[in-house]
């Protein structure tokens, strides 16, 4: 089904927050996937969001170990933009998501023998928000992940919501 760019951005933002990503990283991922529909990106994203969080990353001689694509790639992209790097992430199976985030951040991400290579872009990649065709199954998965940030209602909280107690109709 065709989804608006804003819908895609918002559901991704909420799903990433439901996963526990810090707000800015969740925003970066959401904006990246709503700007560039890399084939396979939503399937990969859902897989990452359903996997356990890995331990903190370490960097040694440009090799990055235990990097979490969503959590760590924005920061590594900062480093590349600041002139550090290139970096090689020992990560597999997340090429579409990594490419989207890297392009959103303004760096290049390519597959190499050891994993994913992050380096400055030779030429900027155009990022344009547009409607996205996303399959219903992926959408449902994202909705389930996004629902993790919703607070179940109680009788008390229902009665304390804005407009509660309203009984006049002007």
């Amino acid at each position, binding site marked *: 089904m065709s989804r608006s*760019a804003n*819908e895609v951005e918002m559901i991704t933002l909420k799903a990433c927050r439901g996963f526990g990503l810090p707000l*800015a990283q969740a925003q970066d991922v959401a904006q990246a996937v709503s700007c560039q529909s890399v084939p396979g990106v939503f399937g990969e994203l859902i897989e990452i969001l359903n996997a356990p969080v890995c331990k903190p990353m370490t960097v040694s001689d440009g090799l990055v170990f235990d990097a979490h694509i969503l959590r760590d790639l924005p920061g590594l992209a900062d480093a590349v933009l600041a002139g550090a790097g290139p970096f090689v992430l020992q990560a597999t199976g997340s090429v579409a998501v990594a490419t989207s985030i890297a392009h959103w951040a303004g760096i290049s991400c390519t597959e190499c023998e050891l994993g994913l290579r992050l380096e400055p872009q030779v030429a900027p990649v155009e990022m344009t928000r547009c409607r996205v065709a996303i399959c219903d199954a992926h959408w449902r998965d994202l909705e389930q992940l996004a629902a993790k940030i919703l607070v179940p*209602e109680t009788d008390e909280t229902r009665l304390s919501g*804005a407009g509660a107690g309203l009984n006049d109709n002007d």
Partner: protein
Amino acid sequence: MKDLTQTPAPLRDPNRIMRLSQMGAAFPTRLSFLRILLRRLMDEKPQLRETIWDMDDAGFGYGVFTIALGGQDYSLVAITQPLAPEDRTDRVIAEKWDAAFVLFDGIPGPEDIARIRKNAPLQEAGRFGPKDLCLSRANKSVRLFDAIINAQQTGTAFPEDEIRKVGYLMRTTAVYGNGKFGLADRDDYAGRPAMMAPFQAEMLTVWLIRHFTHRLIEHLAGAALPVQLRRTLGIGNSTGLGMAPFLVSHPLLLHSWVACRETAFARVLDADVTPEVAVDLHANASQIATHLEEWNVPDPKAQTSIESTRQHWHDVVAGLSPRDFQQPGTLRRIWETARDLSPEVEELALAWMTESFPELVDGLTDCLANPFRPQLDVTMPSAELRAGIDAHWPAIQDLDFDCKDTCAQFWYVSEAKQEPRLGQRATDPGAELESPLDVARRMSRLRADLAGCEDALWQFLLRHPEHRDAARRMQALMANVFSEIRDNLLDVETAPIDMLRFKLAMFGATKFDPKSSLWTRITLFSGGPLADEIADGTAQDHTWMPVF
């Protein structure tokens, strides 16, 4: 027209005017979004066409209205349905409404209309497409609706007091846009001349809904309403917490809104006042006094505030003649007096002064939209960022988040129709899922961790990825001084109504009628021109500080 006028004076201090106590005193101005729409309508003089009116004797059915604006057709598809009294509620968690609306991009064909008639009454549970720009719903003001029909049918007097008190036949409880539920993204149409300023599609939707409500009641009453009555009747709106997070999640847009308003005010404060402008200022000061007299609300606290503003307004302008306004420095002195009296009267003075200088203000309309998002400068030294916090939001240094009152409240989204709510941390469940409106707390934590750090920001953020958002927002604030509300939104004293008032004033709302600290009713387009007046060139905009 792009705005090219130079700003002659410094703008007001953002650390004062971005406090909630000041934002919550805002009044509509020439830069309010509905005023911008009305100026364009009055300039272009488009004809509103009723292309379909399929309504039964009880007022249930649908209608389609089309108008050309900025060279593009827009159509309101309006659908009404029976609604049991027990189902009529303004809360977001409602599932049925008296009327549902879609603003369609162009002229809808039979298939479009059938699709919209099926989906619009479902609102959030419906599905919309790229030709649908806005989605809305409204409930009747039952007592006014019935009273007006009754008066019209029996030939008795219209209930003028009630009309003044309520001000509308229907009130919307949401106007969705920008991609919600599959609607068109704003990016798709933001480049059109009539849609460049913020919320123009939403404002057009509401103005067309107002026309529809007039048409519906005339259909039911079997006769046309008097013109003056139709002008008086605007559209009501019930606004709750859903509007508040927008101001936090759109910092650069917030900056643009306030920067334009403040630039306008700075220009006006030292402007030469011609005899014509002096007469206008004098007349508007009297109009404000009458407007304040007519503005009465049931909430005792809000009513006390209005009464205080009435007195303060009298203190500020009493005895001043048009000739006085022409003396150099008079407007600035009046502002200083108002500023020392109360936030309400200061903001009222701003709205009053800017109203009389369209040539200094209206060009800023082109600067209100802001499509950009905060970007990180990762090469900034960490120490510079910390100094930026102290310079641009000094109050952060004094906040103690270990204190219970400092984080007494938390914002969250309820499972029930994803309604935003405000919880009490000590008693309500869900604090672990709180929404990220804790900007002050995140700034405070960032500042603490930046202490003694000599790295570049990218190095700091690799160690502290949790601070990425606060760092980005702070850099945005350093370059866009009005981009943050300078208050802790978790504080025990924080009242969301202040955020709602500010945003609604930017929309152009009048008759703020707070029902609690969480929600308010307001009126839009009351006093505004009618469709036939727009078309024949006789329209006048009386939506600013309306008096009846």
